[in-house]
């Protein structure tokens, strides 16, 4: 496609709105003011549209397309909050069934379209990826022509360019030495000054124009960081529930590390025990109501030798550490954070075998709730057998006792009690606060005699090699934002023509500040303060409306 040569001699790319060097409008425009966006440069996408590559490029180069991609992503994200995400469903349900049972056809559709695991669904990731592509192409397509236009700009501007700037004035002037004074004042205000045939271009804060693009680079680095999470080994995020006294494999470490929970402590602020400054606060909410510490006293072990799951591991102690909120145990890039807890989980229950009539006890048994024994001998011919055990007891749909999980939340037992006078045994169903005798009246009873509990701690296992990439992305993002927000790109043109001095000015934001600056610069020089042509046009329009109303 041919290029356009301006009368000033500069060769512009096809599609340029006004000459890069002198600013003479190259296209016929009806509007009184020039559209200064992108310096009138030819956004390339708008000009070449030949091959398939060009068509794809032009599609992504459109800001409209980019905005729509973002809007669609936002709507999808919003829909994803209507029903719970898959990861928050109760354990041991089948998602396909659960959504349909709970929410009917809408739930089924929700599941089938992948809203149940929104951030992991292929089309959501594709949307994010397309936003990334749009970001790159939009930026490239604008920053290169903009750079070119700003780099090629001339000092002497065409009259039509100056007259059609928003701020413009023309002053009849005899003494051209005034310009020297103005130049000095501009230099003092950190304007970069270029001069050509007695014409002046004063410019400052050009680097502010690169802010949006720096910001986009930051976003792209951030997206790359997010992408790295899918690379094996880069990111681990698991939860470990561990009871006091237990030693368990740390999930996500491929069987390499083990953790022992020696003790979990939950402390609150107690009246009288704390520093006096806390008294008022403690009084307000009540003693023992505010959490002070969540702490897991842990020992970290490393497995020695080859990893074979299930095999009794040979362990080497690495270190002891008290894990508190925000004070994770860190080792080998893994971090274990205190995240949740459960106080007083049942550990064992004790029962006494008694005669229901006399309440005479024939001995006590203690049932370990994680690994109960089958038979308990009390001596003298008294014996108890555990026929069935339900750690998390409920009656299922068929009306049979069953367990909801393997966690001893609500234990229930079927005991068979043997005594010298009951050699065939009596069966008793014992749950918390209830005893059922399924085969009629028993002579003996398992009387509740106490419990033993322990605390359970939940730790998040985290390993994240993408964090520094995300950090850099975030920092670059902020730098770009600041660069574009807190500096303005200001330009002031002064041109001597036919005994007049023409003054025109442009800024990308904060016109008020620019006007004040011009006022200060021309003060006392006799140059007319430029008028704001945009404001006048607006006022004229407003006045018309008023008139007709």
């Amino acid at each position, binding site marked *: 496609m041919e290029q356009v040569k301006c009368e000033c001699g500069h060769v512009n790319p096809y599609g340029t709105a006004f000459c890069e060097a002198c600013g003479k409008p190259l296209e016929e425009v009806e509007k009184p003011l020039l559209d200064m966006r992108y310096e009138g440069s030819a956004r390339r996408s708008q000009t070449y549209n030949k091959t398939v*590559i060009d068509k794809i490029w032009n599609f992504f180069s459109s800001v409209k397309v980019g905005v729509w991609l973002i809007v669609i992503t936002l709507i999808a994200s919003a829909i994803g909050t209507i029903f719970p995400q898959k990861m928050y469903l109760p354990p041991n349900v089948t998602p396909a069934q659960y959504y349909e049972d709970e929410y009917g056809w809408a739930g089924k559709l929700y599941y089938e379209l992948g809203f149940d695991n929104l951030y992991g669904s292929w089309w959501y990731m594709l949307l994010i990826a397309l936003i990334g592509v749009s970001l790159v192409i939009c930026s490239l397509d604008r920053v290169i022509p903009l750079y070119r236009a700003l780099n090629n700009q001339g000092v002497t501007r065409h009259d039509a360019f100056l007259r059609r700037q928003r701020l413009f004035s023309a002053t009849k002037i005899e003494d051209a030495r005034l310009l020297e004074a103005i130049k000095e004042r501009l230099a003092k205000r950190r304007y970069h000054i270029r001069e050509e045939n007695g014409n002046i271009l004063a410019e400052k804060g050009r680097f502010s124009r690169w802010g949006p693009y720096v910001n986009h680079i930051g976003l792209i680095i951030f997206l790359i960081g997010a992408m790295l999470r899918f690379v094996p080994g880069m990111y681990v995020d698991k939860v470990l529930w561990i009871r006091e006294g237990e030693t368990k494999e740390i999930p996500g470490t491929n*069987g390499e590390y083990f953790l022992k929970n020696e003790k979990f402590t939950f402390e609150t602020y107690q009246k009288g025990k704390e520093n006096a400054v806390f008294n008022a606060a403690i009084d307000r909410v009540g003693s023992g109501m505010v959490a002070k510490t969540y702490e897991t006293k842990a020992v970290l072990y490393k497995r020695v030798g080859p990893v074979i*799951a299930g*095999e009794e591991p040979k362990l080497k102690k690495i270190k002891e550490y008290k894990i508190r909120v925000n004070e994770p145990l860190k080792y080998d890039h893994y971090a274990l954070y205190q995240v949740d807890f459960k106080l007083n989980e049942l550990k064992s229950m004790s029962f006494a075998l008694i005669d229901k009539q006399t309440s005479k006890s024939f001995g006590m048994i203690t049932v370990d709730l*994680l690994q109960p024994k089958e038979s308990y001998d009390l001596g003298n011919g008294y014996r108890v057998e555990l026929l069935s055990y339900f750690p998390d007891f409920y009656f299922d749909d068929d009306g049979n006792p069953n367990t909801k999980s393997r966690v001893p939340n609500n234990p229930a037992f079927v005991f068979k009690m043997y005594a010298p006078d009951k050699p065939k045994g009596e069966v008793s169903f014992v749950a918390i606060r209830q005893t059922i005798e399924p085969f009629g009246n028993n002579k003996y009873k398992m009387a509740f005699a106490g419990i033993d509990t322990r605390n359970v701690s939940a730790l998040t296992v985290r390993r994240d090699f993408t964090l520094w990439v995300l950090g850099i992305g975030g920092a670059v993002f902020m730098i770009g934002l600041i660069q574009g927000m807190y500096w303005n790109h200001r330009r002031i043109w002064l041109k001597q023509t036919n005994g007049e001095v023409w003054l025109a000015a442009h800024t990308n934001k904060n016109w008020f500040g620019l006007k004040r600056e011009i006022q200060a610069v021309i003060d006392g020089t006799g140059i007319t303060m430029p008028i704001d042509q945009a404001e006048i046009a607006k006022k004229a329009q407003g006045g018309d409306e008023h008139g007709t109303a």
Partner: protein
Amino acid sequence: MMKKQRLVMRTVVLLLLLAAVGYTIYANFFTEKTEIKVGATAPDFELTDLNGNTHRLSDYRGKGVFLNFWGTWCKPCEREMPFINEQYKAYKKQGVEVLAVNVGEPKLSVQKFVDRFGLTFPVVIDREDQVMNAYEIDPLPTTFLIDKNGKIQAIITGTMTEEKVKQYMESIKP
């Protein structure tokens, strides 16, 4: 010449972006983040059954292994157990072994369950969740079909019909 350069530049940029997007989607959906995937070698493990015998997966090389993870509270597991038991009787002679891994419940509960259904295949208990972690079990039941070379042939989550169980056992016959 300018035009050619532009086309090349655009093509290169688009290809780079396509590669990045393609890799992300591929890495996330067509590969597993761990070694647990169809075609990979099943992680070795060693667990003890109710009779005190240890079972090591690698000792079963040369046979097809029907590896089932289950819990007594899990109703879908309960439904498919009798089917597995029935088919096991037929396929045991043909070199298919069943290993049922219980997810760390009390031996008592597991024993009662095994007795209730008269299960004849070895039932091992994963007391410390190590094997569950290694196989990334979620949800129950999950069944791994492992061929005679120790490679994972298929991963089935959810309950199976007797017909399916039969089909699966047939597929890993050595």
